[in-house]
């Protein structure tokens, strides 16, 4: 390859690559963080940074999962309910004597089953994913209420708290889980055949099918993955607060989906990175942290949140517009 080609590749990369988009969003995050560090030095305290990261890790894990569905051009708004049900299920199982690992596995399986139901509705009954997952959102939430009769589940063995509150070398475990999920999903999406096919499916479903790909199974898989991730996020959260609430995750899907889109994924499918989602979640997390550290008045908080989200994504769009 001659130098000319290299330059061409670079410029093409800058215009087309999702990596460039991820880079821009990363810059936005750094910018936000720097501004915050100046305005509120407490931001840089290790404990604050760690607890901020710990707090957005559930959003990130669920975001990483739902981003796979978004990659196919679909949406999953049931993840907030799945998040709630998983916490409740694990807590109830542990109360009935299960130990941590099998209970968590079962909780993730519950999430996977909910995802499977979403997938089957979308693929075989051809429901628009918005409706299928809206319905599932309500059904799953209903199950949460029915299982618990509305009462938070508490009184589990102390091991329940390990996932959300444990630490390793001074760093909270949820952060490790978040990184683990990110790595696994990044490899899955970018390096495996299935991952590549999901991208293709999101770009052009018909063409992907005609390329010999079982697009039905693929789509179902994506919903299952979203369910499993949302379930794990729900477990992190329940474990973090030590109690499983049947209402947990109400509206959580908004945050998770927002972090995916802020991270540069397209609602239309076919575009997006795991790192982007991670950064999107971090932006949301730092923003929440900032609102408190800067003592923004309660009436102004939602407004500021909206302005920052719009600004962050605008900056990334402006880069693209420079074509």
């Amino acid at each position, binding site marked *: 390859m001659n130098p000319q*080609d290299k330059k*061409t*590749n670079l*410029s*093409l*990369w800058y*215009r*087309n690559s999702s990596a460039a988009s991820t880079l821009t969003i990363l810059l936005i995050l750094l910018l936000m963080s720097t501004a915050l560090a100046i305005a509120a030095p407490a931001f840089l305290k290790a404990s604050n940074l760690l607890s901020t990261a710990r707090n957005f890790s559930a959003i990130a894990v669920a975001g990483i999962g739902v981003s796979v569905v978004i990659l196919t051009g679909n949406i999953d708004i049931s993840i907030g309910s799945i998040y709630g049900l998983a916490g409740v299920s694990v807590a109830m199982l542990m109360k009935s004597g299960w130990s941590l690992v099998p209970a968590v596995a079962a909780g993730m399986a519950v999430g996977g089953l909910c995802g499977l139901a979403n997938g089957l509705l979308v693929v075989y009954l051809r429901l628009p994913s918005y409706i299928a997952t809206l319905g599932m959102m309500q059904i799953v939430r209903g199950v949460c209420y029915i299982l618990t009769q509305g009462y938070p589940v508490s009184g589990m063995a102390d091991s329940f708290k390990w996932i959300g509150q444990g630490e390793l070398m001074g760093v909270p475990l949820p952060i490790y889980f978040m990184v683990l999920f990110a790595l696994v999903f990044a490899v899955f999406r970018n*390096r*495996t*055949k*299935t991952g*590549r*096919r999901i*991208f*293709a499916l999101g*770009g*052009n479903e*018909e*063409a*992907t*099918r*005609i*390329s*010999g*790909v*079982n697009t*039905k199974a693929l789509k179902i898989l994506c919903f299952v993955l979203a369910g499993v991730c949302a379930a794990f996020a729900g477990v992190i959260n329940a474990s973090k607060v030590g109690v499983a609430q049947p209402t947990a995750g109400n509206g959580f899907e908004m945050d998770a989906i927002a972090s995916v889109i802020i991270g540069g994924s397209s609602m239309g499918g*076919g*575009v997006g990175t795991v790192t982007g989602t991670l950064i999107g979640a971090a932006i949301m997390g730092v923003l929440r942290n900032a609102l408190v550290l800067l003592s923004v008045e309660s009436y102004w908080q939602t407004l500021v949140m909206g302005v920052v989200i719009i600004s962050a994504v605008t900056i990334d769009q402006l880069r693209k517009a420079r*074509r």
Partner: protein
Amino acid sequence: MSEQTRPLLEMRGVSKSFPGVKALDRVDLQVYPGEVLALVGENGAGKSTLMKILSGVHRMDEGEIYLEGKAVSLPDPLSSQKAGISIIYQELNTLNNLSIAENIFIGREPIAKNGLVDRQRQHREARALLDEVKLPLDTQTLTGKLSTAQKQMVEVAKALSFNAKLIIMDEPTSSLTNAETRTLFDIVRRLKARGVAIVFITHRMVEIFQIADRVAVLRDGQMAATMHARDTTEADIISAMVGREIGDLYVKEVAPLGEVALEVQGLSTKNRLHDVSFYVRSGEILGFAGLVGAGRSEVMRAVFGIDPRQSGTILVRGKKAAIRKTGDALRYGIGFVPEDRKEQALILDMTVKKNMSLAALDRVSRGWFIDRLRESRLAEKFVSLLRVRTPSLEQRVKNLSGGNQQKVVIAKWMANEPLILILDEPTRGIDVGAKKEIHKLMSDLARQGVAIVLVSSELPEVIGMSDRIVVMHEGRVKGSFDRRGVTQEEIMQMAVS
């Protein structure tokens, strides 16, 4: 339309670059009233780009455009329309969720006295236009339900409705069969008689001599030559296009025929196919001829597991094959180049490399994981084999010229190394040089024992490349011919009755 008359359109020193590509380099072009100018060139030469500048889709980097002697700027499609230019794009632009009538009049809807769209008038005028292009369809039909050729004719009707002074047709015939092409040429002649100028882009040499007055040849973004059609020969045009001799177009070498690779027995589908049977041997090229809507594409889709079959058996190498979805077909070693590259074959937002490897991921992977090096090598191989004009393997396919996109589709299926390869209009929109390469590749594959099914609306291609030819009509197989000695007329006769 002698050179003495004032040109209707004059483009001077038009240049246009895309990142990594200089698509047009100081191009001059004149078009005279009442003439048909054939604009030709290899895939990626810049023909469509030049025309999109005229239609206001692209803005030129430098250059001037004069219409009837006056300098004009064409910043957007609307001003181009107002200036009297209408265009049929290479890539279909139908609104599939609207009726035919609405497609034709979108943006210029007739308004009744009450301020609402005058639907009656719209349908009346659409009816007249459809009659003109000989499309016997209800104007209320949803455009999404039409076949590619029918959509193409709707676009022709739309282009006519502008009463433009200059009509640009970017490869309109690539998805038409002879009958529609003849209709189109009749229309062109009538327009010409009215003094309308027409720029006609095509890769089919015969068409140039049937219809064009002059020929302009683009090469690598530069105007290589302009000539009068009557003073020139096919060889001249080709050598101006590619800078070398090409020789005979259809190169079918004789390959030893093996066992029957694919056999279809009594295939029927719910609506359109009845009892279709055929077979193809390894090493054989089986051509499919027929009119638009004869059902050839539907046969291939049903065989490949895209559309459900109602009855019928598929045998692969003598054994019954359970093909229910496309993945099954792939496993039986079948490859399929579909007829509509944009809708059915390409992931437009993906790179050249990733599109090429999509059907062959198993061949470039270790276990679950894609071996990126192997993937790149595979793509590089086909980019050079098929001479795909792209600045990089990382270019998104949507930024390639139409013909180069088609090459990517072919590469994708060749990369999969199928034993049975179904090609539905594989050379649509491909330039003469590349076409020849593809024909040669087909021939080579056949020699290596691949069984090939070739569906093409270009009869010379079917006749030139096939060992046997199956003719279809209204969802049924009408008969078959041996390649040797059959004429276009014989095939047409069978296809229409």
